[in-house]
C-alpha cells in the first residue's frame, strides 16, 4: 500500500531521512517510528510528518515541501516515489532501481553515483547532478535522469554510464572527467567536457568549447589532455 507523508511544520534545520518505497510495506505505526535526523538529533518520523495509507502500490507520496529533507530515495532498489513539491540535497543518491518523480525543484547532488532506475524533475535541478561524491572515483553508472527545467554546474562529473537529459539550460563544467554515458542538453550551457575520457555530450544551444577538443566527423573529440575519446556534438 502506498504511504503518504506530509510535513507537519516548517523545518528550522534540515531533516536527513532515507525515505524509500520500502516504507510502503510497513504499517502506519511502523512508518511513524522510522528514525530520521532532525539537525543533530535522532527523532521518529511521526514527530515531524503526518503519515497515512492510500492505495496498494509500493509507492511513497511525499505531499508538501520537502526542500529541507535530504536523502529522499537514497539507495532505493525498486518501487516509486512521487514528490508533490521540491526535494532537498542527495535525492536518489546511490539508487539502483525504481522511479522518483519530483514535481517541484531538486537541490544539489541529485542522483549521485546512481546505478539504475529513473528520476524525473519537473522543475529545476541544482549542481552536481549524477556525479561522484568528492573523493570518489566514479559517478553515475546507469539509469536515467530527466530534468524538465534548468540544471546547475558539474552535471555528470565522473559519469560512467546512464543518461542525463536537461530540457532547459545548464551551467559550467558539464561532463567533467566523464568516462561513459550520455548527457543531452536542449538549451545552452557553459564549459563542457574538461578531462573527458569517453561518453557523449549532445547540446542543442550554445556552449563553451575547450581548446583541447579536436573537430572530427563524429563531433569534437577529446579531452586530448588525457588522451580522451569523448564526443561533444550539437543536435
Amino acid at each position: 500500500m502506498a504511504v503518504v507523508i506530509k510535513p507537519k511544520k516548517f523545518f528550522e534545520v534540515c531533516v536527513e531521512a532515507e525515505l524509500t518505497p520500502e516504507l510502503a510495506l510497513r504499517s502506519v505505526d511502523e512508518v511513524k517510528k522510522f528514525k530520521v535526523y532532525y539537525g543533530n538529533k535522532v527523532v521518529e518520523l511521526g514527530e515531524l510528518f503526518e503519515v497515512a495509507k492510500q492505495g496498494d502500490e509500493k509507492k511513497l507520496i511525499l505531499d508538501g515541501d520537502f526542500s529541507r529533507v535530504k536523502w529522499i530515495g537514497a539507495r532505493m532498489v525498486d518501487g516509486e516515489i512521487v514528490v508533490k513539491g521540491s526535494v532537498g540535497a542527495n535525492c536518489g543518491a546511490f539508487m539502483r532501481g525504481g522511479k522518483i518523480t519530483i514535481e517541484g525543484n531538486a537541490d544539489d547532488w541529485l542522483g549521485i553515483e546512481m546505478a539504475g532506475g529513473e528520476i524525473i524533475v519537473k522543475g529545476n535541478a541544482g549542481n552536481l547532478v549524477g556525479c561522484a561524491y568528492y573523493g570518489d572515483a566514479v559517478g553515475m553508472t546507469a539509469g536515467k535522469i530527466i530534468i524538465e527545467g534548468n540544471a546547475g554546474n558539474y552535471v555528470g562529473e565522473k559519469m560512467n554510464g546512464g543518461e542525463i537529459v536537461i530540457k532547459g539550460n545548464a551551467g559550467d563544467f558539464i561532463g567533467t572527467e566523464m568516462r561513459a554515458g550520455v548527457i543531452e542538453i536542449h538549451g545552452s550551457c557553459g564549459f563542457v567536457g574538461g578531462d573527458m575520457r569517453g561518453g557523449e555530450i549532445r547540446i542543442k544551444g550554445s556552449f563553451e568549447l575547450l581548446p583541447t577538443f579536436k573537430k572530427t566527423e563524429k563531433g569534437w573529440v577529446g579531452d586530448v589532455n588525457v588522451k580522451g575519446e569523448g564526443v561533444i556534438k550539437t543536435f
Partner: protein
Amino acid sequence: MLWIKNGIVVDPKNKIKAEKMDLFVKDGKIVDETKVKKQDCTVIDASGKLVVAGGVDMHAHIAGSKINTGRTMRPEEMRVVRNIAGKFRATVGRVLLTAPAIGYEYAKMGYTTSFEAAQPPIGALHTHEELDAIPMIDKGALPVFGNWHLVFKCIEEKNMEKLKALVAWAIERSKGFGVKVVNPGGVEAWMYGGNVKSLDDQVPGFNVTPREIITWLIKANEELGLPHSVHLHCNNLGVPGNYQTTIESIKLANGFSNAKRQVLHVTHVQFNAYAGSSWRDAGSGAAEIAKVVNSMDNVTIDMGQPIFGHATAMTGDAPFQFSLHKLIGARWSNKDTEVETGAGIVPIGYLPNNPVHALQWAIGLELGLLVDSNKVALTTDYPNGGPFTEYPYVMAMLMSKKMREGELSKVNAYVQKATGLTSIDVEKTLYEVIHMTRSLPAKILGLENKGHLGIGADADIAIYNLNPLETDTSKEFEKVYKMFKSAEYTIKGGEIIVKGGELVKEVYGRTFWVDATKKADIQAVMPDIREYFNYYSVQLGNYGVEERWIKKPARIEVV
C-alpha cells in the same frame, strides 16, 4: 587510587612472564602495596586477565600539515562516522582519522602513547595545536633535520659545535623530542626535480653527502645525549634494490655506542627492504637486513607493516611521493617547506591480489619475524602502511604460523617465490609481542617511565580479556586478534578511560619535549640562524612554540 587484583602480568622490561600479581596505582604512578590504603582503592578484578603496560607507538603520523592535507584531499576518508557528539566528541575517518578519533581509537585498543614521527620545525605550532586536540594519550613529535640548509652548512664547515647548537636550538624551538632524518639530501635534490641515489651522491648546491648528513647527526645527537637516537627514514625508499642502501645506512652506526639505547633507529624498514631491479622482478631483502640488524647491538628498526585496505602515503620524502603518484596515478599533493624540508601525500590502497602489495605485506612480516624481538618495534607507519587500529592483526600474525598460512593462501602467489615468508617457522611469544609494542618502543624513544609496570612507572595500563596461561597464541589467533582490538580496561595516568572496549572518560595526556640547550653553546649558531632568517617567511621572533602554548607540556631536560 587503584588496586588491580589477581591479573596475569606480562612485563618484559621487569622480566615478568605471565605471573599472577596485584598492581597498585597512586597519583598517576605505579606504587608499592605499602603506599596505598587498600580500603580507599577502586578495585579492578583482573582475575584470569592479561595485564600489560599501555601500548607505545613510536612512529605514526598523527598531527601536523601532512595528515591535515591528507584529510583535505581525501574527503572520502571523512565520510565514515565513528562517533556522534555526546559525552565524547564527534569523530569521523576511515583510516585518516580526525584528531579526537586518533586518541579514542588508540585508547580503545589499550594504547596510551604515540609519537608524531615527522614535523617540519617551522610547522611546529600547527603540529602542537593538533597534538593538543588529541585526547587520551601522551604525545611527542620529532622535528626533521636531514634536508635543512643550515644543517648542510654546519656539516660543510665541519663544525660540530655549531651543529649541536642548531639541533638543540631547533628541538627547543619546535618543542620537539628528537632528531628525525628523512631521505637525507634527497628532498633538497627534489627542489631541483631530482633525488639522491646513493649515500655518496653530492647534495645539489652543498658540499655534503647523505653519508655525512647521517653520521654527523648521529654524532651531534650522541654528544648532546638526547633521550632518543637519530631516527632515520633511509634514502631510496620505495625503490626496488634499495635494501642495500638500507644496510649501508644501518652500518653507519658502527663506531657509536650508548649504554642505554641504540644510536640509530631505522624506521618503517619494510619500505626500504626491496631486492631486484624493478617492480617486475622485485623481491625481499628482509633476510639480509635482519642478519645485519641482529649482528649489531646499537641499531633498532620498526616494521612499517602494510595492512590490506585503504591507506595514505604521507612522508617528508617529497621525491618518493612524486614517483608513487606517477606509478599508481593517484592524487598527489606536494609540500615545499621553505629552507627546511618538503613532503608529499598520495592516497593508496593495498590489495591482496596485487603482486607488489602482497610482496610489501610479506616483507613487513619477515622483518617482524626474523629480527630479534629486542630490536624491532611494531608499526604500520600510520597511515602509510594502513591503520594503527590493525596492530592486533600484526601481533596475532607474528605469534601464529597457522594464521599466516591462512592469510598467505589469500594473497598473490608472487610472494611465495619473491620472499621467504612461507618457510619461516618462527612464532613470537606473547612476551615478545608485548615487548615489541610496549617496553621496546619506550626504550627506543628513551621514555623510562613508559612501556612497563615497575614501581615508579606511569600508570598507563591495558587489561585484556585473555588469560595468557590458558591461551595457545599459535592456535587461538582469532581470539588473540579480537581481544587485543578492544581492551577490557585502559588506564591512563591512573584514570580508567576505557571499560569493556567502550570509552568511559576523556582525559588529555602530556606532550613530551626535550630541552638540551644547556648541552650546547647556542650562541655558536645564532649568527647563522639570523642570516638564514632572511630567507624565511617568518621572523626569528615569531618562530617556534612557547611552552605555555601547549596544553600539558612535559619538559625533559638533558643535563
